[in-house]
């Protein structure tokens, strides 16, 4: 029924309007199909070996350009004069520009980020307190998926003006573990044990060699930096296994990890030790009479 109504309405139109309508419909649907086909061909054949980010950018350029071309063609078909439109667009653009400075700044920042390539889709980055994997790099913002599966949108302007750490840029990384051992321990032996722990862990790379540095003399013991190199894909495996390996091995070897300790020294060693602090009785000031406890009246 509705189809017949459409046909009747179509017949009621003048031939010019009907022809124009058909042409516009052909431009819109044809344009949509051509853009889709072009995106498919470019992604599958031309950009087959390109990174995910570049394919995404190429797809957006084709889609947006196709949309603008189809729109201009439809407007021209409708008899809208594009020169006037562009003139008006210029004036409107100035007004819009003032009103949308932040958005424009984000777009420009996005273009800088795309050209500078500090990171790519799929990289893990840290910005401020947010760490996640980049899902997309768009003109206004980037989208992250955090490791606990939250979606985070970060404006490009903020990225351009902040310190961004690309965790997965390089193929290998070093995991730095700070350890403390007692002052009584032989540091050479501790170093050998740690080197052996590194050799025995399958996720730790032999080269570059692990770093074992004595960094500081702390209150209770000596602080060591134990730096292990690993392939970036093995982060969790190494993190889980190496802590256990170190603990087990320290126990086996009898290497003491110190607790905070305090050494008390008395001023006069000939006299008997006096209690200090809260354990001592409060001193009575001279000349002040001792107060007797109050009596309780019986009732």
């Amino acid at each position, binding site marked *: 029924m509705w189809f017949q109504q459409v046909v009747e309405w179509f017949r009621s139109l003048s031939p010019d309007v009907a022809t124009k309508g058909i042409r516009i419909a052909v431009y819109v649907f044809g344009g949509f199909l051509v853009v889709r086909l072009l995106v498919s061909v470019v992604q599958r054949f031309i950009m087959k070996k390109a990174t995910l980010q570049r394919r995404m950018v190429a797809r957006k350029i084709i889609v947006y350009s196709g949309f603008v071309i189809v729109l201009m063609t439809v407007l021209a078909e409708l008899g809208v004069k594009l020169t006037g439109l562009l003139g008006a667009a210029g004036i409107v653009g100035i007004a819009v520009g003032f009103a949308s400075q932040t958005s424009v700044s984000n777009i420009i920042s996005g273009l800088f980020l795309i050209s500078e390539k500090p990171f790519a889709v799929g990289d893990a980055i840290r910005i401020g307190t947010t760490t996640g994997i980049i899902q997309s790099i768009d003109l206004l913002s980037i989208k992250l998926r955090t490791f606990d599966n939250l979606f985070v949108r970060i404006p490009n302007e903020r990225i351009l003006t902040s310190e961004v750490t690309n965790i997965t840029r*390089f*193929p*290998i990384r070093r995991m730095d573990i700070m350890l403390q051992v007692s002052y009584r321990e032989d540091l050479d032996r501790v170093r050998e044990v740690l080197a052996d722990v590194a*050799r025995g862990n*399958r*996720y*730790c*790379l*032999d*080269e*570059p060699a692990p770093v074992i540095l004595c960094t500081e003399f702390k209150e209770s013991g000596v602080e060591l930096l134990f730096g292990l*190199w690993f*392939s970036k894909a093995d982060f969790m495996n190494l993190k889980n296994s190496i802590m256990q390996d170190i603990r087990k091995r320290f126990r086996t070897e009898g290497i003491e990890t110190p607790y905070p300790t305090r050494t008390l020294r008395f001023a006069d060693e000939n006299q008997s030790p006096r209690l200090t602090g809260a354990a001592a009785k409060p001193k009575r000031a001279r000349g002040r009479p001792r107060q007797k406890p109050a009596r309780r009246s019986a009732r």
Partner: protein
Amino acid sequence: MVKVKRREDTDLSVWNEWDLGPKQTAVWTFPERRIYVERVAQEWHVLSVVGEKNVGEASRTLIERSRKPGSSGWRHYLSRESGPVRPQPVLPDRSIVAKPDRSLMLLAGESAQFFLEIPVWFRMNVGGVRQVQVFEEPLAVMSNTWFGDPVNGELCYSLATRLHQGMSSIVPSAWRAVCPMAVTNDSATDLAFERICLHVQNLAVFRGTERLWTNGLSVLFRGAEQASHIQVSPGPPEFEPDLAPAAPARLPAESWDIRKTFSRIMEFADF
């Protein structure tokens, strides 16, 4: 337990094809790995466990299925091919950084022939005319290492090995392939061997009477500032006659030229 054959010295028959009967489990024993294989209905069941290091070289046996170890580590592969089991010794799937057990300097103008031993992987194929690869497993555990700088490089296996200069010092082995390497120092500086990166994916394995071999390599070192030239022999090495092909290379060698070598590290890349 039915024993097919067992010897304490090298027995390359571990690499022969084998027809498994029903209700039988085949066991390949190597110093660092033991592999159990059986055919159940349309599946191949495989178990790979850490070997006992005090066993002899290598052997294979048949055991009754009831005596196979119970373990959650059994892997099941569905395949219509029930044909004979064809084990193949293949080289590792990644490059190897071989660290000689001693520091060696090749003086300017000198040449030397070295032999390296590379642990092979156990690849199991099944079938007759149409062979299907079921699985593969390293026969020795090698740790990971990185060759190159922290920004560019490749993930390799690390192998501490002897740089033999003669065959007499190499104990024949059924699970290590000997890689002959001829090095010529055609530069004015001495060449220090500390680490050698070998792209073993481009090497095939050949079988002799008592040992396995890889293709031979010849390396021409022209100094730290120039690219060294490396050539892989197209066929088996000439140190033993009548070598038969045991396994093809994983990747064909595409190029004979390599990048600039480092002064203390000799690198075989892009071959």
